[in-house]
């Protein structure tokens, strides 16, 4: 390989990317380093092009697309119900949240009613999902700081949540449990006991993480004043979720435009003003505690009744009717062959995912398949902020910054 002695770079090293790096890189004064896509701390297959001055990050260019799955396009080729299976695979730590967003869009499009019991179970499970997602975040964030035990403790707790998901849906991650008009079916008999068990089990565990990390001087020095994000910059880049709330802007879709009955529950939206990695850490820790509050309330006032809408044009009839009702057989046949056909129109529905505003835009042309599906995913917008956060920090901080943005590549590339 020829190497330019002047700059120490192969002649074609900077082809087509001079605009991404500073002039000093062109002169060979700084080092270009590819971090990822195979790197233990880029949380999947994120590739970062780093321009380093010693260990100080001069420029950081995220390169996405390594996990591109074409989910949006794929969904357009499937009936509405079949497409829901793809939503599980978007943000694979927020499967139920994705399900919820998608079915809510269909419900809005078709003006479907959802029984209160289904609404309550949806809230309950989505909040459990939020805890599970934050647990993965906390574990990997701590692991990035090399506190490896926290990672395994977090996964221990997450197991219990996944067990609950498996109990109700038969699947630990790819649940597809929420369906247009309600739920796939009612929760199983052991469900309430399992959730109650978890509600009493979990808060002491959060205290345990507190003891391991929150006041740990090494962790404090690694996270305080690292990755400051100005509120204006955050707003300008469309950053949402804990990132935005840690910058002092109280914006949570569960409060701002309550959906699925969130207005019935009493919970706080924590905010912070420091807007650094530590503030975002505290935010997410507090969010876990608030989520468990919601879960507890939802469990205590879980209404009885049906879990599916009675609109047979969208919701399959119960098995028992198939033997007695001709109409039920016809509905069943239509739903499983052609699928339901929502009216023409387009909707946008957004929910608060663990990472921020998760929205789906659905356009129906009056056929059984969506004409266009677009996901507004929080990871995709939040990752834009990474170069701004990383500038001037060390490589060691960068891995924590990737963690604090809490991106998920399945959510970024879809």
């Amino acid at each position: 390989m020829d190497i330019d002695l002047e700059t120490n770079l192969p002649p074609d090293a900077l082809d087509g990317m001079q605009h991404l790096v500073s002039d000093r890189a062109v002169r060979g004064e700084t080092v270009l380093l590819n971090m990822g896509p195979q790197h233990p701390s880029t949380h999947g297959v994120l590739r970062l092009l780093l321009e380093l001055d010693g260990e100080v990050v001069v420029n950081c260019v995220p390169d996405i697309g390594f996990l591109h799955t074409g989910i949006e396009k794929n969904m357009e080729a499937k009936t509405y119900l079949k497409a829901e299976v793809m939503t599980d695979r978007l943000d694979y730590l927020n499967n139920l949240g994705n399900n919820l967003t998608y079915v809510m869009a269909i419900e809005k499009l078709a003006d479907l009613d959802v029984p209160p019991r289904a609404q309550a179970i949806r809230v309950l499970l989505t909040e459990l999902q939020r805890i599970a997602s934050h647990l993965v975040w906390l574990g990997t964030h701590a692991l990035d700081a090399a506190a490896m035990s926290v990672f395994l403790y977090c996964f221990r707790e997450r197991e219990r949540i996944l067990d609950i998901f498996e109990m109700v849906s038969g699947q630990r991650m790819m649940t597809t449990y929420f369906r247009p008009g309600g739920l796939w079916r009612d929760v199983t008999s052991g469900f309430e006991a399992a959730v109650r068990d978890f509600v009493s089990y979990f808060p002491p565990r959060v205290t345990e993480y507190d003891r391991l990390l929150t006041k740990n001087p090494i962790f404090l020095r690694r996270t305080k004043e690292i990755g400051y994000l100005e509120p204006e910059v955050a707003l300008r880049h469309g950053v949402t979720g804990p990132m935005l709330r840690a910058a002092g802007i109280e914006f949570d879709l569960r409060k701002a435009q309550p959906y699925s009955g969130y207005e019935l529950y009493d919970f706080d939206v924590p905010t912070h003003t420091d807007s650094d990695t530590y503030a975002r850490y505290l935010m997410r820790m507090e969010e876990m505690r608030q989520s468990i509050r919601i879960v507890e309330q939802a469990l205590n006032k879980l209404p009885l009744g049906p879990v599916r809408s009675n609109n047979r044009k969208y919701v399959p009839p119960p098995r028992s009717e198939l033997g007695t009702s001709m109409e039920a057989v016809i509905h069943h046949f239509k739903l499983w062959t052609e699928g339901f056909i929502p009216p023409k129109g387009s909707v946008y529905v957004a929910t608060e995912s663990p990472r921020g505003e998760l929205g789906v835009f659905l356009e129906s042309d009056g056929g059984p398949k969506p004409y266009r599906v677009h996901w507004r995913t929080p990871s995709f917008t939040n990752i834009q902020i990474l170069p701004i956060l990383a500038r001037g920090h060390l490589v060691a901080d960068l891995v924590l910054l990737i963690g604090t943005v809490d991106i998920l590549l399945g959510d970024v590339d879809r």
Partner: protein
Amino acid sequence: MDAGMWIELIVKVIVLIAALLVGFAYLTYTERKLLARFQNRYGPNRAGPFGLLQPMADGLKLIFKEELIPEQADKLIFILAPILTVVPAWIVLAVIPLGSIDLFGRTINLSLAGDLNVGILYIMAVTSISVYGIVLAGWSSNNKYAMLGGIRSSAQMISYELALGLAFVGPVMMASSLSLARIVEAQSQLMWFAVLQPIGFLIFLVAALAEINRAPFDMPEAEQELTAGYHVEYSGMKFAMFMLTEYTKMIVVSVIAATLYLGGFHMPFITDRWPWMGPFMLLAKVFVLLFVIIWLRATLPRVRYDQLMQLGWKILLPIAFLNVCVTAGVMYLLGMIA
């Protein structure tokens, strides 16, 4: 030298090397097992009963691995670097006093180099060499991550080494000798220097952790940041040699800490009565220290390397200085030194 001394020397060398090799192998096992227990896991439990054959399995696997040398690497230095790190770690133990026993009608000093009167200087000189191996490994790999790891370790070395050196001074002053045997003897007469020199002991432990690149100061290899740091390009037995160094140094540093601050091979009542218990007493103390090192790894996040430099220069070094001054002052007042 008569034939008996030669035999004695050879036997001691073989025993020491065997002990270190077995110690290394089973330290990896102990660490994995302990870490696993700290973290709700089982650890190795497939190879042999309780996974006891796991180190052998690992060793065999590494021997059969293909040894890759990057095309752009500086091959000579690339091969020399692991040797340069591993040798110093091994030869340090020669000066550690282990007591003496009477056997076959002669008094045998269990330590390899006997009673070297500048034992401390020897340790300081030899342990510092290892870092060259790390820096050169990082440089010769021609890999940016490895390079960063190498640079980090040199930055790390200059910031803790001074504090480490000053932590040696306390025991040296109190024993009025640079000989490790004298230091152990002084502790058997007074009491453990960890009690008399608690600050010195703590500084020694912190600086020693940095010296051996163990958590929370494992920046040169920082898996999460630099993938594997300086040894990212190494495979097979060359990689195993870096691991060998890391674990041997863990043992060595624990041995030194036990000797300087925890009374070495001497244990009140026990070694006075049964001198052959000396090495076992030392082993017990070393094991306690090793447990602490592994425990720290399971608990603490990693310090950032500029923060380690701050810690070394701004906190450890002044405190170590102060400790030396206070020790000298108190000793002067007590009339222990003129």
